[in-house]
């Protein structure tokens, strides 16, 4: 898993250096690449870590279904980096769960971390692309972090050890978080040859080469389970 994660992080960052030129009339309009990532049968675990020191059960939790996969371009078209905007995104904390569990953003984005539980949370990350620790804050409050470097950021709560999430920071906009069925869609792709990467729960599942021509009306790429 170490090598997969490393490779994944490198891939996220490599987009800047490996940009390929887009040509033809489809460059402005673009083509849609869509498909499905076959997700592992076993759902990700959201159970609390067992603690012998508890005097009873923890509060009941309604854990939302998680999104688990991202499909992205390993190399992006030239010009993909010019329209980079530092937008805003949000990762909620409710029922002792980060929602969404998986967030994909572009470099320069600021992510809000509102606390909607009745207890404290302490969001932190020790990941190299962005180390941060927001400290403890109560329900109704929110703190923010700006992500200026590409890579994979693992997010945790210092108080509730079962809480964890991923933030994938891209240098371009050619990515899509698959829905809970694994379906994804990347729009406005200019002609060119690209490497498409399916990333599932912390590891690169598969890479596929895809060619988009000016005549392409749409490209369908599926990623079966290996």
């Amino acid at each position: 898993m170490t090598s997969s994660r490393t490779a994944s992080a490198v891939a996220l960052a490599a987009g800047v250096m490996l940009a390929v030129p887009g040509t033809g009339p489809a460059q402005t309009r673009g083509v849609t690449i869509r498909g499905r990532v076959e997700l592992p049968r076993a759902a990700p675990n959201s159970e609390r870590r067992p603690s012998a020191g508890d005097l009873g059960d923890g509060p009941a939790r309604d854990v939302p279904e998680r999104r688990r996969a991202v499909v992205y371009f390993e190399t992006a078209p030239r010009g993909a980096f010019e329209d980079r905007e530092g937008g805003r995104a949000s990762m909620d904390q409710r029922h002792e769960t980060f929602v969404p569990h998986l967030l994909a953003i572009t470099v320069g984005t600021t992510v809000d971390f509102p606390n909607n539980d009745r207890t404290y949370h302490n969001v932190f990350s020790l990941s190299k692309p962005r180390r941060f620790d927001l400290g403890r804050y109560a329900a109704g409050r929110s703190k923010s972090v700006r992500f200026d470097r590409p890579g994979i950021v693992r997010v945790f709560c210092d108080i509730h050890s079962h809480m964890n999430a991923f933030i994938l920071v891209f240098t371009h906009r050619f990515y899509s978080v698959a829905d809970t069925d694994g379906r994804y869609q990347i729009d406005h792709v200019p002609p060119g040859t690209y490497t498409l990467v399916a990333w599932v729960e912390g590891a690169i599942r598969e890479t596929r080469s895809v060619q988009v021509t000016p005549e392409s009306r749409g490209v369908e790429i599926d990623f079966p389970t290996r």
Partner: protein
Amino acid sequence: MPRPRRIGGLFAVCSLLVVAGVDAQVLPQETVSLIGGRLTLGGEVTATVAPDDDGQFNTTDYDRSALQLLRFGVTASFRPVERLAFVTELRAEGDTGGGPWTALPFAAYVRVRPWKDRNFDIQAGRIPPVFGAAGRRIYATDNVLIGYPLAWQYLTVLRTDAVPANAEELIRARDTGAARWYSVGSPSYAAGVPLATAFRYDTGVEVRIGGEQQRLSWASALTAGTISSPGARSENGGPQFSTRLATRPVTGMIVGVSFADGQFFSDDVATSTYRTPYAAADPYAMPAAATTDGRYHQTSWGVDAEYSIGHFLARAELVTARWRLPIVGPESIREPLTSAGLAVEGRYRVWPGITLGARIDRLGFGKIDSVYGRQAWDAPVTRFEGGVAWAATRNLIVRSSVQYDTRTRGGVRSATLPALQATLWF
């Protein structure tokens, strides 16, 4: 400390660092679960190295130093149906100073939640203490410092299986080192007990009403032993009652008040009274079970508080204890023995993964009449500990601390003890 042992301890810490450095990324970031989430697992490996504690300031009731602890622990929770869970924590503990290993089920209990939507839980078996706060903390991952609060670890001169025949014998025990001998009860040398122990759970049944997120919660337990000497079975025929009421007036603040009362001295004391040379020679010897009020209990009160905000967390805990000794002769100690321990600690996260912490701690003892005058029945102890914790990865925490202990009596009256600890958990 003999050099090979110290090298062995350092080797253990370094090994953990290397293993963690290589494998930190493959350690599970989520809870390990099997059988569709019905079985969940957690684990911890801790290695601590420190110079020998010649003054026995950190000796625990397993006769090893808390600053030289080696621990392997696995916690499992099996939930066959929604409202029933079996929880166990298995621990193997050793000592980088070379002491013996112990392996035992630290916790093993069944938890029942009769009503799904009500915060009402019943736990039975070897259960966590309801008294106080420090005894339930998963210490390796919830503390910056390596040492324990004095009230929860420091061994007093008081034993459960032997009692001094008079005040002078008890007061002299302050100067006799870790192991004490008394003329009534068990004839062996043994260490005393702390006010409450953080190293053993008791056996019994407990109920809790209210949960972690509610304004008020209350828990009570009936157990075989006492908070200072938990046991798998009652050694004196008397159960202990303990209770704690906790309130959370604002988010981040918890204040708890605890009470515990139970038979402290074992039946061995009563049955062996007339076998000891001192009591056999005493024509006025009385049955050990008799006291001024017919009880030989430990009665404890506790107050604990925690407040946290942002990167700061503060904790304070007061534990008091009052023991009644069996009357074994005309010179027996008739006054209750009292003690109180107060610990105040704070920690501050200065950088992601780096936390500073400090604790000041005082354990005091009440005075009793003796031929030496009115004196404290054990030597008061003061401890200051400061340290830093570094989360090298999320699952690997490295701590370094320095502890300064002083006490008014004993062969070693002060000690400065640096310590280094690595904890790998999942």
